[in-house]
């Protein structure tokens, strides 16, 4: 009985999402190929950001709400390449190169702060995100175009300094997604796609039972796959092993001579730098940068997706990331339309999206605390002697 209960309790969040989606998909009336297309796009867009959360979890630092620091670093890189007019893959690479040192500095700062707030990493990094947001806004709103040279008038506010809220990333839009154009198409879809692509060469696969066609962001998926391989490799290294040790018991790791604080800082730095790349990949897919908002929700939605994928504050796998992206975004895609078809109001979907992502984080945190208490109790039960089971 306890076992069944455990299985349900451990997978409650993904299960709820599967059930909701199972109802909402038919209600939305979307075709399978549309849903697959949308999901593929969103996997490409979001996975990298979510994957950047894994390493701090491994090091026992919980969900790194501080990943927005990395996202801001990435955005600063993007602003510079827009100003300098560098486009395409070189532009993206340059944005990464500019973002990396900023992310490293922010990561080191964040790591030092978190080392002073052991056991309260999540709330600290969350609030730290607000603080750095303030610094970022000051930089972007006042310093850019004034002290930091930004010359492109399309970027600047009409007053002459400060960056506009909406920045078009046309130069790098979809550049990674379409680097290796790939489509899967049903029998009827070929001609239609050749038209769209203007006669350029592309990889094409045919699936006879498919209706319509699906573009695959192959290069992005390859980057993500490489990242997954990196994480798998990282777990096998000494550094990864040290992080796992610290994650389970800081005091034991410390007494074994593992440099606890340093390792924790490394974990946060890696996460911040990866979040910086993740945000660049995310924005190249979106094609526009909301200077003052884009990073805001990067953290919240990534964390929600990871938790929905079945991860917890102390344990997360690569499988959780992809399960989370699929379930979370499937909900996003179908919920507004399902809501509209059901109630006649598309707002309900948007409401749902926000409600669900915050709600899920709350539930996951509560579940985590509850489970940890229960485990502690179970661990102590053996000490309660022969009468302990009453």
């Amino acid at each position: 009985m306890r076992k069944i209960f455990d299985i349900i309790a451990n997978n409650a969040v993904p299960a709820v999402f599967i059930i909701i989606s199972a109802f909402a998909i038919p209600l939305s009336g979307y075709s399978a190929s549309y849903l697959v297309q949308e999901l593929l796009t969103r996997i490409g867009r979001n996975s990298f950001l979510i994957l950047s959360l894994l390493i701090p979890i491994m090091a026992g630092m919980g969900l790194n709400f501080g990943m927005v620091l990395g996202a801001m670093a990435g955005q600063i890189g993007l602003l510079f390449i827009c100003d300098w007019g560098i486009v395409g893959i070189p532009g993206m690479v340059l944005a990464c190169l500019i973002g990396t040192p900023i992310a490293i500095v922010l990561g080191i700062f964040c790591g030092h702060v978190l080392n002073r707030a052991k056991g309260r990493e999540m709330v600290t990094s969350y609030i730290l995100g607000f603080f750095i947001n303030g610094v970022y806004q000051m930089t972007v709103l006042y310093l850019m175009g004034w002290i930091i040279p930004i010359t492109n008038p399309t970027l600047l506010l009409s007053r002459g300094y400060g960056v506009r809220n909406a920045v078009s990333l046309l130069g790098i839009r979809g550049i990674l997604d379409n680097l290796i154009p790939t489509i899967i198409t049903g029998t009827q879809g070929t001609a239609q796609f050749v038209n769209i692509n203007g006669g350029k060469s592309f990889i094409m696969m045919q699936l006879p039972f498919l209706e319509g066609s699906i573009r695959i962001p192959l290069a992005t998926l390859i980057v993500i796959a490489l990242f997954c391989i990196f994480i798998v490799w990282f777990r096998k290294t000494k550094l990864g092993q040290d992080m796992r040790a610290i994650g389970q018991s800081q005091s034991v790791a410390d007494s074994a001579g593992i440099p606890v604080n340093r390792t924790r800082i490394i974990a946060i730095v890696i996460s911040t730098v990866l979040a910086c790349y993740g945000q660049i990949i995310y924005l190249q897919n979106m094609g526009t940068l909301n200077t003052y908002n884009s990073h805001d929700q990067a953290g919240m939605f990534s964390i929600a997706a990871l938790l929905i994928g079945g991860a917890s504050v102390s344990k997360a796998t690569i499988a959780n990331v992809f399960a989370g992206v699929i379930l979370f975004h499937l909900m996003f895609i179908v919920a507004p339309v399902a809501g509209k078809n059901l109630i006649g109001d598309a707002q309900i979907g948007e409401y749902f999206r926000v409600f669900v992502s915050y709600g899920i984080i709350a539930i996951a945190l509560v579940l985590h605390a509850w489970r940890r208490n229960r485990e502690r109790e179970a661990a102590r039960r053996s000490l309660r002697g022969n009468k302990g089971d009453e």
Partner: protein
Amino acid sequence: MGNNPLLRLEHIGKEYYGNRVLSDISFDINAGEIIGLVGENGAGKSTLLNILFGMPVIASTGGYEGSIQIDGRKVSFTSPNQALAHGIGMVHQEFSLIPGFTAAENILLNREVLNASSMRYIFSERVSTLDREAMNGRARSAIHTLGVNISPDMIVSEMPVGYKQFIEIAREIDRKNTRLLFLDEPTAVLAESEAEILITALKKLAASGIAIVFISHRLSEVKELCGRILVLRDGRLITDQPSYTLSTRQIASLMVGRESVRREETPEVTETVSTETDAPKKKKKIRPALKVEHLWVDMPGETVRDVSFEVMKGEIFGIGGLAGHGKLAIPNGIMGLYPAGGTVKTFGKKLTLNKPRAALGKKMAFVSEDRRGVGLLLDEPLDWNITFTAMQTQGRFLVGIPYIFQMRNDLAMRKEARKFIDQLSIKCTGPSQKAGELSGGNQQKVCLAKAFVLRPDILLICEPTRGIDIGAKTLVLDTLKQYNKENGTTIIITSSELEELRSVCNRIAIVDEGKIAGILPASNPAEDFGMLMMGQVRNEEEGEFSA
């Protein structure tokens, strides 16, 4: 090496803030020797270990006296890592294992076998991957040395407790340069059969040239394993002799010492108690004030598993034993401060456990060992502190209509506080002084006053004299005795100081490894209690008493 011993201590001494805890400790340890180190709590064992391991606490409190030599060369460690580098290994009483790791991962923690990787030239060694095969191999051979069969792939959290101890020791063995191994109570968590395996394994280790210092309170094991026994008492080395020249009883009496100290007075209440036990006809039936049956209490670090005893009305009952064996858990469990089970009856009526309110409602009062944490509201004035529990549980010191509108009766509170300040001669500026500003001894008196205000039938007191000076100690103990005499209150005192218990109690129960080892009249010689503390009663052979 030559004729130099592996480790030589010369005139080691240590003071903490003018409080002498170690004086003039000198002994040698040779390679391959097994030495038993025994002593009561506070005898100075842990301070000695801290000095040997270069724990920061030693340096930060002014260092130590005397010198330590390894292979004839003088050393002075400032961090545990230096001690490790010199081949001194330590297995702690608490497990320092990572629960989610396998045996191999734990044994080789931070000493993992790494694959060669070109990346290490760019970054550091830490980016090399682990060579799991080689790690498992090394772990297996370390475990094998101990003569047990544990798979290196087994996750530590899924292991029985005994296995964990072996993993800890295997970790020290794997360290190639380990030459001297300290084991702090390694058998405390082991079943008898496991302890036997461990002892065999340690003998094998010693034969391979590693010196072992075995710290245990189980004297029979110490005697069986060790070639030499060192007894520490009150910071002095009392004896250093081959174990075959000592019987366990002799060891116990050396540890407890003070055989010559006779009890000066016998509290009169003993009469009532002895009538109960020796001559039941005189009084037909005395109901016990407190009857505890199969009590278990889950108090971290002080768990008791199965405790049964009876306390008669008007008795002063002592609970003693070594720290960590569970004596504190008994009163805390009865009062409902930690999860507990079993049956507790007061004057024949069953007490609801796990509800402090229920215990307070039965006219029981409690003085916690955690004076500043549980005992007092440090930022509140004395009169509040003294009357607080009475106000909350008995509705006293209030004016107004119960359940509808009630207010504090400050006047009555202050009056009551003044009464106790005079009675117990609490040194303070007045009832409105904050409790946190008083000295330890006076705070303890406030705690007692707080309990007395409740007019309890049963008073439970934990460590009444911990951390207070000698004068206050006598006063506190005398107050208790007097209170018992005047009001006939049943008092249960838990203390780690046996002499203190012997001076006030009628009977004393000794707790050992979560169980009552025995209950003896306080007039018994100290070494009897020592034997109980050392777990000698259960596996004691009659012959050894006479030896």
